């Protein structure tokens, strides 16, 4: 009896299994069918994927030389492992502290000074009703964004030139000696940050202006009926409307605090201001490609450290933003 029951149960299970298989066999078939049906789309993806692997993922594989003592003779896989020696060397280097401090100061100074200004500019432009005035201000303030970094730094050198620069002419008119701003280590950070703001504030305002144009006009009408003045409407309608976008942009830029604009810092460097102008990215470049004894492993280790810390920072800030304001990048 028991055997019969078992047999029955077994056959029942079998039929259930068959049913399940029967249910999923076409699904598997569909899966392959969908891949086969779209094969031409995969063909389109071949080149982009090859590019991605060669130029983006192969370097990640190559980054393992941070844990080796790389020598061109042995290649990436043949060079001996040295563990964390390259990282320890950086931590113990006398350059470690000033480089980290310089990078962070420059980043946070840029962030704190540069973050609110495009928002203020957008709020202010949004109040202007005269089309022509508004468009002209926008057009003019966007313009510097399109000037290359080399030219911007070249302009700084000329504008602040101790002899022929604009500031020199002004100083002469006032009867004082013009200081050599570009050679002054004390001025470097201010010049770097404020020239960056000068260049990017207009362009940075675009996204906020776009968001402001989506604010429901009914809110403003209701506020006017309630007797709110313009400042109050900015405070209670426009600014809350901008907050989610501002939050996302803040998270993204906080995640990049270690990535101080290499191109600009490098051009502004001189032996005079190096004590405040050496940042991680410029040091990585110099150690790896510029010094008399090229040290690929050491340079890669510093770069890798920067990349990992940056990634962790982005994740942490995003997490914090989500908990505090319900706005996050992902």
């Amino acid at each position, binding site marked *: 009896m028991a055997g019969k029951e078992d047999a029955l149960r077994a056959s029942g299970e079998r039929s259930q299994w068959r049913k399940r298989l029967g249910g999923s066999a076409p699904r598997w078939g569909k899966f392959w069918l969908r891949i086969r049906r779209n094969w031409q789309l995969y063909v389109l993806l071949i080149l982009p994927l090859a590019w991605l692997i060669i*130029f983006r993922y192969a370097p990640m594989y190559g980054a393992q030389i941070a844990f080796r003592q790389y020598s061109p003779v042995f290649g990436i896989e043949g060079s001996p492992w040295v563990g964390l020696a390259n990282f320890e060397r950086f931590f113990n280097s006398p350059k470690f502290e000033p480089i980290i401090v310089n990078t962070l100061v420059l980043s946070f100074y840029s962030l704190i000074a540069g973050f609110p200004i495009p928002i203020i500019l957008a709020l202010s432009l949004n109040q202007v009703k005269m089309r022509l005035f508004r468009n002209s*201000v926008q057009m003019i303030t966007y313009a510097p964004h399109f000037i290359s970094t080399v030219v911007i730094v070249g302009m700084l050198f000329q504008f602040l030139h101790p002899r022929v620069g604009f500031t020199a002419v002004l100083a002469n008119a006032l009867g004082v000696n013009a200081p050599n701003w570009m050679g002054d280590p004390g001025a470097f950070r201010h010049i770097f940050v404020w020239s960056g703001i000068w260049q990017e504030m207009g362009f940075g305002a675009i996204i906020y202006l776009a968001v402001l144009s989506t604010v429901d006009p009914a809110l403003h009408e209701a506020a006017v009926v309630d007797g709110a003045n313009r400042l109050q409407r900015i405070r209670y309608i426009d600014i809350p409307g901008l907050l989610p976008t501002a939050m996302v942009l803040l998270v993204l830029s906080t995640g990049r605090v270690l990535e101080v604009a290499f191109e600009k810092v490098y051009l502004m460097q001189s032996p005079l201001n190096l004590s405040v102008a050496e940042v991680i990215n410029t040091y990585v470049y110099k150690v*790896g490609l510029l010094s008399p004894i090229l040290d690929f492993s050491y340079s890669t280790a510093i770069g890798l450290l920067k990349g990992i810390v940056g990634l962790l920072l982005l994740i942490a800030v995003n997490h914090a933003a989500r908990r505090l304001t319900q706005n996050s990048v992902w």
Partner: protein
Amino acid sequence: MASLTSYESNINKVNESPVDRIFMLSNTAFLVVITIIVLLPLVFIVSASFSSAEAVIAGRVTLWPVDFSLLGYETIFEHKKVWDGFANSLFYTFFGTIFNVVMTIIAAYPLSRQDLIGRRIITIAFIFTMLFNGGLIPTYMVVRDLGLLNTRAAMILPTGIGVFNLLITITFFRTTIPPELIEAARIDGASDFRIFGSIVVPLARPIIAVLALFYAVNTHWNTYFQALIYLKDQELFPLQLVLREILIENSIDASMLVDVEDLLAREGLRELLKYSLIVVASLPVMFIYPFVQRHFVKGIMIGSVK
């Protein structure tokens, strides 16, 4: 139309409280000040570039050309290095942008198709490179091992696909090409290649314009870093690298200055040359940007939709 606007603004004025009127006045003043701050350095540079070498070195130029002269521009026009750089930059920008746009479009279209298996993982693989990368030296080693160092290809191939540009293109395709259209074309017997060529690319024209601009200006014309690390030969240098030599490193071919005997005037010409060079180098982009800035704005808007 004009009368209508003034009529409207009159109504606004009647309704406005004194507080608002003061606010609007200071707001306008604020924007005027900002505009002046942005314009001031630009006006100074342009003025100096049209002044005489003597006026420049004497520090007499402020916001208007002094002793109007085209000497700076004439000197630049004779400077072969600048023109070689110009030609190289045009080459890199033209071919580089074509490569970038083609790669971005052929990657973005499949990734915008909801029915593509593996779409998510490939997109994430792209986005991940935005958050983390192998670094300067490992990338340099790849370019070196491919034998691209000191070649024109090194200025083009590594730029490939910008992830931000890829994402806005995917968003564009997803929002502008309805799946029904693709389905209908399929039922009519069109292959995916055919759909891509006859439907997707023609519909993609607006985004192609945005991409071409982003890549041309941000990735090619205005950058020098790639050239700095990958190129050695002078004759391959793009304009930005030539500018760096003259503007930043202050190295100007002495033969350029021989016509001027007076030492002070020579020093003046050296500076004058830089002002003119800044103007000449920025001219192409400055000239086209008023006509294309709305495409830039559009690109940023698409990107902000997410």
